[in-house]
């Protein structure tokens, strides 16, 4: 139980971070390894320093707390998370992404001690499970749930976040040309660049606005604004020609969808 807990503080407000530091200072075996003031920094710090526990604010510059979690959680050895925010409306989403606790600002020492206790329990349990090699939930499906929580219920993603090592790219949804399935990953193509993300195509398609993005094939979702024309190659075999000349295959049901959306 006396194991050291390595903690990262993520909040854009300095007083909020200093409060956490002060409270945590009273606890044995807790080491604050760093502070991040925005979403990008948080993703970088989590990827590079591998903290055990993250105190995570929700509203921050660049990425919000849920987007940070979406980018780092699917990895094995992802940290336990305690959300800290003045807003109570994110509580449900926080528990959907398996947050250890949800601290509402302002909170006192006792409330923090309680959350820390829970986090320690969770970490001990996780360590035991790793040794026993119990099957963990499939990372890809967890990523889907995280992404769904990140955009909130009933909303379509206005931007996609992808991580390349410790670097984060934010891609506005309307800039995406098309998305291609590649095994457990999706390749998001945008203006000549391509970004890999650990997610299934079905999950990503669900997150995108169906008025703008159509699944034309088992392996392809396309932005309808990028389509120049549809050509018939042979009987029942069609291709979509994009404005930049690229060709994408179209399945029969994909063509039906396309006709519905793009007529």
């Amino acid at each position, binding site marked *: 139980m006396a194991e050291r807990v390595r903690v990262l503080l993520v909040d854009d407000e300095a007083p909020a971070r200093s409060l956490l530091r002060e409270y945590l200072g009273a606890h044995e075996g807790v080491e604050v390894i760093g502070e991040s003031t925005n979403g990008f920094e948080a993703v970088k710090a989590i990827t590079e320093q591998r903290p055990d526990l993250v105190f995570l604010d929700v509203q*921050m510059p660049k990425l919000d707390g849920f987007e940070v979690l979406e980018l780092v959680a699917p990895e094995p050895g992802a940290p336990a998370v305690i959300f800290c925010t003045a807003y109570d409306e994110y509580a449900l989403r926080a528990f959907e992404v398996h947050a250890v606790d949800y601290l509402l600002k302002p909170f006192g020492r006792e409330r923090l001690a309680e959350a820390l206790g829970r986090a320690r329990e969770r970490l001990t349990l996780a360590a035991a499970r790793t040794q026993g090699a119990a099957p963990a939930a499939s990372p890809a499906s967890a990523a889907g749930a995280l992404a769904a929580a990140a955009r909130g219920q009933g909303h379509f993603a206005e931007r996609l976040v992808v991580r390349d090592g410790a670097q984060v790219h934010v891609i506005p949804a309307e800039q995406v040309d098309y998305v291609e399935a590649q095994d457990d990953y999706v390749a998001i193509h945008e203006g000549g660049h391509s970004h890999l993300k650990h997610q299934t195509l079905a999950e990503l398609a669900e997150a995108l606005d169906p008025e703008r993005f159509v699944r034309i094939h088992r392996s392809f979702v396309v932005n309808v604004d990028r389509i120049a024309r549809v050509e018939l190659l042979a009987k029942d075999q069609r291709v979509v020609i994009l404005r930049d000349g690229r060709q994408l295959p179209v399945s029969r049901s994909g063509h039906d969808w396309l006709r519905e959306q793009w007529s």
Partner: protein
Amino acid sequence: MHPLLARPARLLLVVAIAALFGVPLAWILKLLGPRPWVAALAFAVPLQIISGFIVLSAWWVCRRHPISGPGAWRAVAVQLGAALQTTAIRTALGTFWALALDRWLYAGLSRADMYRDLAVMFATGIPFYLLSAVGHYLFLAFEASHEAERRVLETQVGAREAELRALRAQLNPHFLFNSLNSINALVGSDPEGARRMCEGLGDFLRRTLALGARDEVTLGEELALVERYLGIEQVRFGDRLRVERAVDPDAAICRVPPLLLQPLVENAIKHGIQDCVNGGVIRIEAQCTGGALRVAVENPVDPDAPVRRGEGVGLQNVRRRLEVFAARESQLSASRTGETFRVLLTLPAVVGALSEAPRG
């Protein structure tokens, strides 16, 4: 649609009243020429009913040509013309009706009798139409005064509602939660700072309630409230929040509705400073030129932040309050150029004594 034609019950009323007018007409016809009562009524009553519907056309003429104002004489002329026209129609229909009755009911109407009846129909038709026109003008005047009264009430209710909303937005609980969290942090590291912040928060809340209870405040008072607000947020955001001010002394004494600016500054922090890693500058400008007061609030926007569609509650609320204050002469425009978001308020520059007493 004429209001009397809108419902069957009213339609019956039109028929009944018009039919009643048939009795004096029948009496006149009987006085002038020998004919039985039955024949006179059979002629006059249906004719009056039809005429009754014809003179309802005065409704459209009356609405188009109000009798008050500079067009009064023109309206009288138009009404006389309409009286002649409707009477011509009535006389023509009456003539056919008389000929038909003559054939079916009784014969023996002489040519002289016909001409005389024609004259009677014409002579009674004109006052009948004018009576209808007078009635319609009275009805329209009555309705207009009713409508004006309703509009005054509506504006009052709308104004109160907008004020209440502004006050509630002002006392945004998240602002309080975050401020309390900052105080909580300062208690450990900087107790003196914590005291100052308690004082500042108390001062801000007290001023909000005091200004919110008034109809109008000066822009200077409103800006002083905004300064208190920025002072509190400065503790949360530190160097990230920087403020520039360019307020003309002339502008500061202009009258504005209370709690108009603070929501704009709050938005500038929430959607500007908070989204930017290194924060930025909030710029507050106010000028008074050519009888118009222009107040602008500018904030930086993070290029990665998703573009907001439509107007948030804060802006809508400010817009509504401007409408209540001076609907025609006030304006709110919001625009984003590059990485700057700017809200510009334009309202009439009014300077003068304020009603200091709170409303009861």
